[in-house]
C-alpha cells in the first residue's frame, strides 16, 4: 500500500527523496520504496523519518 502521507509531508517540507534519504541515513531507493509501498520500514527508520519531517508516527504511518 502506498504511503501518500509520507510523500505529502516530504513535499510540504520541500525535500527531495535524496535529501530525506541523506537525513535519515538510507538510500534514495529505500525512500522511494517506502513511499511506493514496496518496503515496510522498521520502527527505528519510521521514527527517523518522522523526526526529519517534523511529524508523528500517527501522522505518517497510521492507517485509518
Amino acid at each position: 500500500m502506498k504511503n501518500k502521507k509520507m510523500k505529502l509531508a516530504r513535499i510540504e517540507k520541500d525535500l527531495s527523496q535524496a535529501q530525506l534519504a541523506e537525513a535519515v541515513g538510507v538510500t534514495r531507493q529505500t525512500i522511494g520504496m517506502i513511499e511506493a509501498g514496496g518496503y515496510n520500514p522498521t520502527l527505528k527508520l519510521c521514527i527517523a523519518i518522522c523526526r526529519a519531517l517534523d511529524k508523528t508516527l500517527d501522522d505518517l504511518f497510521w492507517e485509518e
Partner: protein
Amino acid sequence: MKLFQKKPKDERIVSEVNKTYKAAWYVMSVGFIIDLYQKMAGGTPEGISTFRYVGLEVLIFLAAAVLQIVLLVRGGLMDDNPIYAETDRFPLRHYLGISAADGAGAGVLYCVCSLLFGADYFKSAFVIAICFAGIFVCVLIGCLIAFFVTWRAAKKRRAAQLAQAEED
C-alpha cells in the same frame, strides 16, 4: 561525545543482503554434508569418472557464490556494500581497484603455486613475469566486465521493482 561515529546503514539493503548470504549458507551447508558423505563412502559419484573430477567442494562453493549474486541482482542490488549497492552510475574506480586486486591476487597465487609445485616451464624470471602479467590482465578485464554486467542487470531490476511498487 563519541570518538568514532558509526555511519548509519540502510536497513533495507542490509536485510536484503543478509537474505542472500543466508540462502548461500544453506546451499554450502547441504553441499558440504553431501561432500562429507561422499568422502566417507569413498570414491567419486557415478557418471563423472569419464572426465577429470574437480572436487565437489569447488562446485559447492561456485554454486553458493553464483546463487548469492543472482539473489542480490534479483533484489536490485549490485554490491553488499551499502555505498555501492544501489548506485545509478557505475563506480568505475571502485571496481577497477577490486578487479586489479583480484588480478594481482590470482597472478601471485598462480606463480607461487607453480614455483612451489615445481612446474618445468617456471625456470626463468621472464616466464614468471609473462605468466603474472597475462593472468593479471585477463582477470582484471574479466572481473570488470562481470561487475559491469551485474550492475546493469541490478539497475534494470531495481527500476522494474520501483515501477511495479508504484503500479500496485
